[in-house]
Every structure is written in C-alpha cells, then in structure tokens.
C-alpha cells in the first residue's frame, strides 16, 4: 500500500554513540511535494533536526493553500524546508497570487535553490533579521511562520509574534515552532497565549486575532 519516498537514512553512529553529523529525520515526503517528487527528493535526503519537523511542513503547506492567503512571512529560513513547502503550496494553486517574505541572518543558499525549482518569483528573501524585513512587507499578513533562532534572545519569538499580530489580516494566522515544554523558556508563554497547540514534532502554537 505504501511506496512513498522514504527520505533520509538512519542516523550515522560512527563510534560508540558519537554522531558523525547532527541527527537527521526519517520521514515520508510531505504531501505538497508529491506532484514534483522527482525535483524535491534531493532536497530531503538528509534533513537535520535543527529544521522544523516534517509534519510541520505539511501543516504549513495546508494553511498556505487557502486562496485568502496572499501574504506570508517567515522568521528563520534556515535551509528552506518550511519555505519550500509554503512556496510549493502557492505554486499548486496555479494562480500568480501569493508571495512569501522570509528572513534569516545566515545565508544557506536558499535563493539559488528556489531559482532552480522555479519558485524564485514566489519568494523575497532577506539576509537580515525578521524585524528589519517586516516594514518592507507591503501588505497585511495572512500567514506567518516564526522559527527564528533565539540564541541569546530567549524571548525573540514572542517579540516577533507581537510584531506580526499588529500586521495580521482579519483572519490571518501566526504559527510558532518549538513550542514544546523543554525547547526554550518562552514556550510556555506561547502556549498560554495561543488559540491552538499541536504537540507533535517540536510543537506548534497557532494564533488568530480574536476579532
């Protein structure tokens, strides 16, 4: 019954518990990538667990499919897996509407990959902080994914959440990653404020303005 691509391999345990690389996921290719499986599989052969969880990419792709979602922002591009999921979801709508603004202080070469995948026109990438990028986003935000590195800034995501909520469209959504108990000290505060908390993977909190 199931023959989908099994991406990733088992961890590489080279010597008595020493990991050769960061741990990687073993997972099924998220559904949004199925239509261009041949193009996407290479990007998912080895995904380290610093990236958001594969089931998170699935949720983001589904949230991005709504035609009312036109403007998406992302804090923390990293290697682009969540960005790929949302951009491919926009592409699958088949209409030119829908654009993503994504920011990261570190460049992992995502722009070149987006170009190869025919998704460059769907994304504006900012080499800098999310706070720097946000004023340049020209419209109300329909979907936001906050997954910025918080090293040295434990409440950074809460700050970004408040920034986004002030720019959110009437029925817009904000999704924050790493909302599980022990991930970071702001997680409990996120969960207390959220409309929804989905614990699988690193844990997602989802927000919508109450209006």
């Amino acid at each position, binding site marked *: *019954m*199931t*023959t*989908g691509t*099994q991406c990733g391999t088992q*961890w590489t345990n080279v010597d008595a518990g020493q990991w050769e690389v960061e*741990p*990687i*996921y*073993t*997972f*099924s*290719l998220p*559904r*949004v990538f*199925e*239509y*261009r*499986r041949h193009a996407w599989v290479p990007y998912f052969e080895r995904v380290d*667990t610093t990236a958001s*969880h594969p*089931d*998170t990419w*699935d*949720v983001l*792709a*589904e*949230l991005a*499919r*709504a*035609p*009312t979602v036109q403007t998406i922002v992302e804090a923390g591009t990293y290697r682009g897996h969540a960005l790929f999921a949302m951009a491919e*979801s926009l*592409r*699958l*709508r*088949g*209409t030119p509407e829908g654009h993503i603004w994504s920011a990261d202080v570190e460049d992992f070469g995502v722009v070149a990959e987006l170009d190869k995948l025919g998704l460059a026109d769907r994304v504006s990438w900012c080499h800098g902080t999310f706070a720097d990028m946000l004023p340049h986003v020209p419209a109300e935000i329909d979907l936001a994914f906050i997954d910025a590195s918080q090293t040295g800034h434990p409440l950074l995501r809460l700050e970004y959440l408040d920034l986004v909520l002030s720019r959110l469209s009437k*029925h817009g*959504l904000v999704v924050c990653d790493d909302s599980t108990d022990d991930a970071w000290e702001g997680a409990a505060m996120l969960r207390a404020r959220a*409309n*929804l*908390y*989905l*614990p*699988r*993977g*690193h844990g*997602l909190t*989802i927000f*919508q303005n*109450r209006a």
Partner: protein
Amino acid sequence: MSEAVEAVGNLMSEVPLPRMPLTADERKADAVRQFGPNADWMLRMVPGAFELEILHGVVFPHPSVMHAYESGCAEPWTTQVVTSLLIASNERNVMETGCFTGQTSAWLAMALERLGGGTLTTVDIDPERTAKCTERLAGLGLTCVTHRAVTQDVLQFLPTVPDHSIGFVWVDDNHEKPHVEVETRMIWEKLKPGGLALFHDVWGSCDLQTVVKKWGGIALDLPRLGAAGGIGILQKPK
C-alpha cells in the same frame, strides 16, 4: 535526541501521481482522474473551478478515496487539512459526527494508521451510511486502527461518551447553528484537555465560524464547492 526523529509509515498511495498539469486540458484530465464520474458535476457546480485550479495539491491516502467525491462530502483539500492537523495533534482517540459516505472517515483512519494506531468512532443517524462507512474502512487494510460505527443521533450518543476522553472530533453532521451550539457544548465536556474539535462548513451559508470563535477557536476559509466551506478549530485548554 531520539524524540525528534520518527520513523513513520508512509501515507502515500501506490497510484502513480502525475506531474503538475500545465495546460487547461491536462488540468481537466487531472480532475477526472481525481474525481472520476463526479468531475463533470463539479464543473457544473463550480464554473471555472479548474481554471481557478483549486482542485490541485491533493494527495489521496488510499486508492479507494480517489474517484469518490459526492455532493455533500467534505472537499478533498479540506480533508487533507484536517488530517494534517490530526497528525500534528498526535491524538489517537478520534470521533466523527456525520459520516455520510465514509470518505472523510477513510482519511481519518489512514491518518491514525500513519500515527501508529488509534480508535475512530463514526456516528451517523442513518444506518445505510453507517454500513457504507464500515464497509469502506474494512477495505483499507488497516492494521492498527479500531473502527467503531454508531447508528444514533449524535446528541443522544454524546452523553454516553465518558467526559474528557476524546482527543479529536470532526464535526460534520447537522450544520444548523442551534444544533451546532448544543453539540459544541456537549463535545466540550467530552474533549480531553488539549483535545481538538474541528467543524466543517463554518464559512458561507452556515456561518458557523461565529460559534467556533465564541469558544476561542479559529476559522480557516478554504475553497468551496457549494454555499459553505472551510473549517473551524477549537481546542480545550490543558
């Protein structure tokens, strides 16, 4: 460290999936592939739907739910959103109110199978629907999902459910607002802390998003095939 890595079963069907269709004819052919004899009906119901290309991006979890859409079913993309949220919630005790042809039931069951097992209780007042749903789920080859079909009015069945026991509910029976308001109050008592209730057709003619938001939930507007669509989501606090 190991908690972050999960070896999960694969949800994808064996049916080869096409590349993304590029032309209008290809898109129409793809709709026929997905919806079979219902494609023409959908064209009539949604003029320009294929031009709007809202039907794409659905990956069916089992061949039996392809060519299966009927008027009254949840839209396939809606069902895909629902199962994504079920998987992300990691809940294993699932209830569905109003199973109709069992199409969404099949999606929910396959999502539970992917999660590694669980229980799906489908409730419908119509014995023919209950039987059809049971037959459909029996054909899925489920290995670790228990299906319980109940033929009863939902409002009569819910009081028999233990309080704080349900992890995830898909509410898709009577969409009249007074009914849903009563149903929501009853479901709230049965949800376990952290449990989710998802409601179909909250946007459009049914206007159930006001009910969902009254309980602190959120509403997603998704492409519609009729006068109503979208989903509402509410969660019982921990």
